[in-house]
């Protein structure tokens, strides 16, 4: 329990209606069954993170600053979160105040000409996209979904997304940032720090964006981010897209300048070749791997459960494992013609088969709008009630594809032993980023039952095995490294040593919860 003086100060600072230490309410923040990879023997320990001491709801940067000053005075740890999906949002230890940024939810500016938006923490991807589309723009929306915080992904987490070929990934989309440091001081990164606008997050001189995050952010371990500017990208549909239905029943009139395809390639190698050629041709709005396994798991889980028992159907389906969804969103008829021609040539050169899904309005509507809005991901819970991913480092595309090959070979054994659910084995998600740059990622999905210790443990072992493979092959520092610097650092230049120094320099009292960042002292 918090010291009474501290609690009273918090109430006085932001209003008693915005502070709570009611136990059952606090457990709403402690429950974090998703994407947690802390191996424990008992399921309940796994699913419940440590309960916060209290929850506070600041309404402004000044509120956040005041809260942090209270924390500094009383030496109380804190952990900030926005929408809160994923184990990294909750306290990692006892004695932490949860800072819920829900009240800070405004879109402060959409600068159409300079293609950026200035947002607060609780603006979710769908909201920003809906507003940006009114100006013919769109943000990058991460694969987790449009129900997640754009600011949180940009400043504090990863940021992979299905439209990466045209909208990059969150870490590369951050411009100016407002940051409340662990000691309560405010730091603005880049141009806003010099009162020169929000269009740039780097400088003067070295860019402190490099301290804020790398491949991933600090997941709350370096303070609280209260504003950031993020890039917006051109969205070439000038009118509002009228949407009927909710999700799987979505119907839209497919805009004329958008085409949507499934591209089937005969092998991992050809799959990689096709993406390289597409990147070099600088075509495409979206390119993301779409497996039959995940399609069935999300759209027809009952069918997948039936297929899981049938070896010959599985074998037949495995012949179609190298598929990517591809979308063209053209700026003109000529642009569309060029892109279509180039795509057909590429698929032909790589011995693939091209199916134009946008000619099938019912299927296309759901898949297309769901991809643009990034609204499909939570369907992955339908099959087995839980899933997680591993590998997924951002690397040259050949190595990313190698990761999906390795992941699927490892998964086979776990599925055979019943330690993971059958998903037709080759089941990564990801694609290439930044057009011609041709780097990319493939994170391997695994399905397990949230209520079942056996498959939970299966997931843990699967993740460990994949990580070891990534070290041995090698295949980069992937998403499993979040907060595990002491394990992964020695494998990658001892980065943990530098990260630790950063932590000590910027949070010497270790008040920002370090669990998913790095502790000031080695554990």
């Amino acid at each position, binding site marked *: 329990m918090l010291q009474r003086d501290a609690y009273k100060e918090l109430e006085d600072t932001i209003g008693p209606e915005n502070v709570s230490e009611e136990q059952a309410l606090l457990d709403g923040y402690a429950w974090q069954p998703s994407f947690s990879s802390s191996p424990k023997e008992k399921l309940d320990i796994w699913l419940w993170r440590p309960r916060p001491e209290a929850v506070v709801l600041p309404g402004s940067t000044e509120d956040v600053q005041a809260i942090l000053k209270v924390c500094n005075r009383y030496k109380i740890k804190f952990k900030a979160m926005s929408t809160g999906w994923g184990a990294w949002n909750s306290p990692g230890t006892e004695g932490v105040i949860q800072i819920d940024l829900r009240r800070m939810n405004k879109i402060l500016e959409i600068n159409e*000409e*300079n293609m950026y938006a200035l947002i607060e923490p609780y603006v979710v991807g769908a909201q920003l996209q809906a507003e940006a589309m009114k100006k013919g723009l769109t943000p990058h929306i991460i694969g987790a979904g449009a129900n997640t915080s754009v600011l949180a992904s940009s400043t504090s987490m990863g940021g992979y997304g299905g439209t990466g070929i045209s909208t990059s990934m969150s870490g*590369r989309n951050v411009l100016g940032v407002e940051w409340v440091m662990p000691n309560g*001081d*405010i*730091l603005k990164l880049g*141009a806003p*720090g*010099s009162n*020169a*606008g929000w*269009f*740039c*997050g*780097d*400088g*003067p*001189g*070295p*860019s*402190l*964006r*490099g301290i804020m995050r*790398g*491949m991933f952010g*600090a997941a709350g371990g370096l303070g609280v981010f209260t504003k950031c500017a993020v890039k917006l990208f*051109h969205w*070439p549909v000038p009118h509002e897209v009228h949407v009927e239905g909710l999700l799987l029943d979505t119907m839209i009139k497919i805009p004329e300048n958008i085409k949507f395809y499934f591209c089937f390639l005969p092998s991992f190698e050809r799959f990689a070749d096709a993406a390289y050629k597409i990147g*070099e*041709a600088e075509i495409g709005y979206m390119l993301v791997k779409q497996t039959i396994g995940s399609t069935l798991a999300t759209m027809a889980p009952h069918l997948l459960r039936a297929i899981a028992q049938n070896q010959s159907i599985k074998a037949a389906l495995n012949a179609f494992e190298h598929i990517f969804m591809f979308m063209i969103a053209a*700026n*003109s008829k000529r642009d569309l013609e*060029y892109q279509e*021609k*180039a795509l057909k040539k*590429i698929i032909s050169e790589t011995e693939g088969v091209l199916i134009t899904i946008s000619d099938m309005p019912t299927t296309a509507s759901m898949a297309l709008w769901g991809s643009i809005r990034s609204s499909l991901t939570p369907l992955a819970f339908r099959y087995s009630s839980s899933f997680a991913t591993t590998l997924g*480092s*951002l*690397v*040259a595309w*050949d*190595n990313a594809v190698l990761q999906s090959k390795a992941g699927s070979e490892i998964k086979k054994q776990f599925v055979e032993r019943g330690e993971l659910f059958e998903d037709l084995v080759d089941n990564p998600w990801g694609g290439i980023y930044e057009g011609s*740059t*041709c*780097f990319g990622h493939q994170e391997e999905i695994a399905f397990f039952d949230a209520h079942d210790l056996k498959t939970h443990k299966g997931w843990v072992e699967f993740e460990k095995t994949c990580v070891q493979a*990534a*070290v041995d*092959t090698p295949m*980069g520092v992937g998403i499993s*490294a*979040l907060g595990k610097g002491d394990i*992964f*650092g020695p*494998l990658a*230049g001892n*980065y943990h040593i530098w*990260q630790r*120094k950063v932590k000590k*320099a*910027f949070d010497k009292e270790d008040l920002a919860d370090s669990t998913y960042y790095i502790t000031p002292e080695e554990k």
Partner: protein
Amino acid sequence: MGELKNKLIGIVGSESFFEDSETLEEYTSDYSFVEPKKPMYVVKPESMKEVQQIVKLPNENYVPLIPCSSGVPRFRGDTIPSKDGSVIVDLSRMKKIIRVDRRNKVALIEPGVTFGELQAEAEKHGLKVLMPLCPRATKSVIGSYLEREPIIIPKYHWDMTDPLLCTEVVFGTGDIFRTGSAAGPGTLEEQWESGQAQKNPMGPAQTDLVKIIQGSQGTMGIVTWASVKLELLPKVQKSFFVLSQNFDNLIGFIYRILRLKLGDECFVLNNLNMASILNEESEKIKNLKKELPLWTLAFCIAGYDMLPKERIEYQEKDIKDVAQQFGLEVTPEIPGIIATKLQDLICTKPSKEPYWKLRYKGASQDIFFLTTLDKVPEFIKAMNDEVEKHKYPKEDLGVYIQPIQQGRACHCEFNLTYDPTDSDAVRMVKDLFNSASEKLIDDGGFFSRPYGSWADMAYDKCEDTVTALRKVKEIFDPNKVMNPGKLCF
């Protein structure tokens, strides 16, 4: 002193150690107005190991080290010592192009590699280097990218680090580190074996130390190699211009074509700068300048390996449609200049000698900063007001506007050309430089690359950034041996 000298010679060999006046003079000053100061020694290491040993030395007995990789002429003052007893670590002899990877369009190079050298190698693989505007022949690729010099193809500029990818750096502590996906797991060779290509600049994990090194003017460490993005060498290419007496008329069009990712190279020059790039002789520059409109937007369209002619064809038509919407005419010619001349000069080659900025008057002081394209007219006006106030000849002012970050920001550059042998001119330009810099920064220009006197101006505006940067400096160079006196250190 003698001990230090012996140690340095022991590391690099006597043929790479210099203390003669002539050599030291080369590093004492440059074209900037930064106060000259002679270094004590110059060393030219040829490997990372040598660099590391050099860096470790002053951590025992304080000796300021100043890394530099480009040859003369230099312009920014960032490699002029601020302290007595400095040692220049000149990396220009580290000239290996370690690897060029066609499939992944990336090169791994050492700091001494120039644009011309890398381009020659890249072309063998059907690739090209992402160039700033006519870099000088002696300009180091890594040096340019570390300084965040803007490239002239905005659509390839996804983040401010581009086109720089991974680096190997020796921090001021003497520790070696590899940034981005180069960090590991695995050696470089093991990574190549598994299909990696040091393509991801982020990380490893939860810091982006390449962002700390970039823009640091050598105050954090010394980069001993870097991977850099290459792009496809066009199979077909065309250039176009939009001419205007009024910069404002070009803004909407530029925003639009960049938003639609049409075209490749794209930048705006005023008549003096355009004339200076197109001609090598001062008199010819003067004459051409008179014929050119005040502003020229230059852009190229390229066709690569995939359907190159079709690409050019459709993009040309689409761009012309956009131009029509803005009431502009796109022309393949500047009056009196053949169509492909500019393309030949800027797309894949460094500047011919003399360096283009020196051609008109012999010297140039550059004032540059970042802003957004819509604000450029305000800054042009402010600069013109300053020019008038100081009675600087308006016709001697060069202007270069480079959209960056795919059109979301803009490098705004004013080139104050002058005769360096004319002491009155030098005095006037110095006053104008300082006065205009202050005005532009007060008006909201973001001086993200604060060289020389800009450092105080820029950091006065962001105390919190200074506090944070000093904490960072404490991590990577606690003994403050790396280029002391620069930035806010």
